[in-house]
């Protein structure tokens, strides 16, 4: 990447988009690309309403450990890829926020990884926020980003009428990035997605903040019914196929279940690439 491109990226993500890590944060080992700033109540990099939940942000090491891309690693091809993907989606929606369903052609294709990092890529942009909803109720993974995994999630929201939306949206320690976990596992969960409450939830989330991009981490295509319901709720669908894992038949079945209108395309995940080993 040329120096000009690097500079542009930095400008787009805001002043180097340094991860803000409070001094003395638990387990935080500052990495070379991580800025250490003084503890404060408001961060100039953060949209003011979101500053409340972003007192404690994850360190670069924690992010790397969780498999989340970091803006300062702009030379990393994975970072570039997710930035490009983000740009394509924004262009597709003409700058408006959108609901993106990420599903995989089979289990183990890494749709959660794609969904989480796509969210992170949206959050790179200081003018945008990302909300990741874990819709894979049978095999949830978003909770792993949180320190408190037992916090209420989607299922609790469906089952508890008193629970407010705000109570299930949780910060993950990344600026402008929030998640809704799947919640506790229950049987017969598919009906929740067809409920009015789910529609209400999605409408509310989408309308409340125009800069918010909502990413739904969907179940794999083996749950075709879920995918159909969820794709109705979404604006765009990304299908994840994995290198050396997915077959043409699986991809074919998956694509048949999704409307061409909403299908953004196929993300070919986990292509081996020899890393730079220092």
């Amino acid at each position, binding site marked *: 990447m040329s120096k000009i491109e690097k500079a542009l990226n930095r400008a787009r993500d805001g002043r180097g988009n340094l991860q803000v890590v409070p001094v003395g944060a638990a387990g935080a080992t500052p990495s070379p690309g991580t800025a250490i700033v003084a503890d404060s109540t408001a961060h100039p990099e953060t949209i003011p309403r979101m500053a409340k939940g972003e007192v404690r942000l994850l360190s670069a*090491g924690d992010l*790397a*450990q969780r*498999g989340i*891309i970091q803006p300062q690693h702009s030379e*990393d*091809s*994975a970072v570039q*890829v*997710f930035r*490009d*993907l983000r740009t*394509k989606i924004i262009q597709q929606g003409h700058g408006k926020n959108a609901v993106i369903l990420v599903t995989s052609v089979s289990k183990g294709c*890494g749709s959660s*990884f*794609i969904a989480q*990092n796509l969210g992170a890529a949206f959050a790179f942009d200081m003018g945008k926020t990302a909300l990741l909803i874990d819709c894979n109720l049978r095999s949830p993974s978003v909770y792993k980003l949180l320190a408190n995994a037992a916090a209420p999630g989607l299922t609790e929201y469906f089952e508890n009428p008193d629970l407010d939306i705000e109570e299930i949206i949780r910060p993950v320690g990344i600026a402008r990035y929030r998640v809704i976990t799947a919640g506790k596992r229950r049987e017969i969960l598919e009906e929740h997605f067809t409920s009015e409450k789910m529609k209400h939830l999605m409408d509310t989330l989408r309308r409340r903040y125009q800069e918010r991009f909502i990413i739904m981490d969907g179940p794999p295509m083996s749950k075709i019914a879920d995918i159909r319901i969820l794709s109705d709720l979404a604006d765009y669908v*990304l299908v994840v*196929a994995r*290198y*050396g*894992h*997915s*077959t*043409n*038949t699986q*991809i*074919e079945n998956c*694509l048949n279940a999704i409307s061409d209108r909403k*299908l*953004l*395309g*196929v*993300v*070919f*995940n*986990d*292509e*081996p*690439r*020899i*890393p730079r*080993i220092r």
Partner: protein
Amino acid sequence: MLPEQIAKALITESFHSRRLVVTIFVIVNVAALIVGWLWPKGYTASTSILVDERTIIQPLMAGAAVATDALDRSKNAREVIFGRRIMDLVLEYGGWLQTQPSVEEREFIIEEIKKRTVISTVGKNILRIEYRDVDPERAFRVTGKFAELFMQESIAAKAAESGAAFAFIEKQTQEYQDKLTRTEQELKELRSSTLDVRAGEGEVTTRLNDLYKRIDAAMQELREAEVKGASLERQVSGEAESTAAISREGQYRTRIAELQSKLDTLRLSYRDTHPDVVQVKQQIQDLTEGINAERARREQLKGSGRSEPDEAVVNNPIYQQLRREQSQTQGTIEALQARIAELQRQLQTEVSRGKRMHSGDARLAELTRDYQINRDIYQDLLRRRENARVSMNMDSDRQGLTFKIQEPVTLPQAPVGPRFLHFVLGGILLGVVIPIGFLCLRLQFDPRIRIGSAIAVAHKVPIITVVPHLWSPRELKGLRWELALLTLVVVATVAASAAISAIRFTKVL
């Protein structure tokens, strides 16, 4: 799919399956080391035999003696050497029979020897025999024996072959000679039997023509003579009759006239009753009767055709003349008749001779034809027999096919065939090629997708992005160790191969 894409996919896949690649590399190398170590050493002994048919005799006998075609030489040599007789001798000579092998074992050993023996032609006239054995000494001995037995067998076979050819041609020649002799004999007999016929063979027609002409002429003459004879006959008869009649009647008439005058005189003096007159009358009467009698006799003679010329006639010169001519004519007729008879006899003889001549000619032509054919074949056979005799003599004097050991067999010092180093190098090469080949096959046939663009092609949907593997710090650390370990394994494998090669080379082990 473009070659660049395939190459990129192959590199990606090699990295992805690095452990498998290294494992196969190590296994292949170890296998090559083991095989190379256990591979039996082979010693090859070889000898070249110059098969020389271009002796000094050949140009002299060009076209006469027939030389073996060089193209089939190695095939012929293989047939001869791998023949049962030579193989049995070689088995015995090479010491394979010391263990008393069974019939099946012997067959197996023979097959093995055949597999290890290479017979080839170098250039046009050099035959090369190569034999490989684990024992250099035996390779040396067996190769030498092969060459020796091959030369013996070839010379004997060629001599026998040319001898048989000569014997056959000799027999044929004899048969044709007999036939020719018989034909000659028949021809001779025929010629002698038709010898008379053959004299003046070409004149038969002329002579026949001549004879016919002469016969015709003689016949003509005969006819003329006969006409003449008949005429003379008639003339002779007529002359005698007329002469005789005229003479006798004349005499009678003269007497009658005389008597009439006398009577007339008497009548003048005497009466009719006078005795003189009566006498004279009587005489006249008698004479008249005499004339009549003469006439009657003449008529009678004329009727009988017989004439008895009387003296008066005979004495008639014309009559005599006619008689003479008649006699001559008669003689001529008889002579002509005799000549015609002779000519006709001659004609008969000539005709029969002509007939005999023609029948003899047909037979002669047949015999001559047979004779010529037999003679041609016989002469050809004679020529062939002489060729065969020359070939046989060349073989018996070892002039036709000579063998010379061009390159004598030597005791092989160094083993041949793939050496240990070849196995080591081959192992390293295969250790690289086999995993790559395996990965290629997997890329080709594994339904799991490894090339992103293939999805776009197969499903007509855009590949919105290809996300590379995101290495976590822990993974990277593990990868570092893993790559170091794999490199170490590869280096150790190559080093071990090199070390074992060096040890093997210096014959420490």
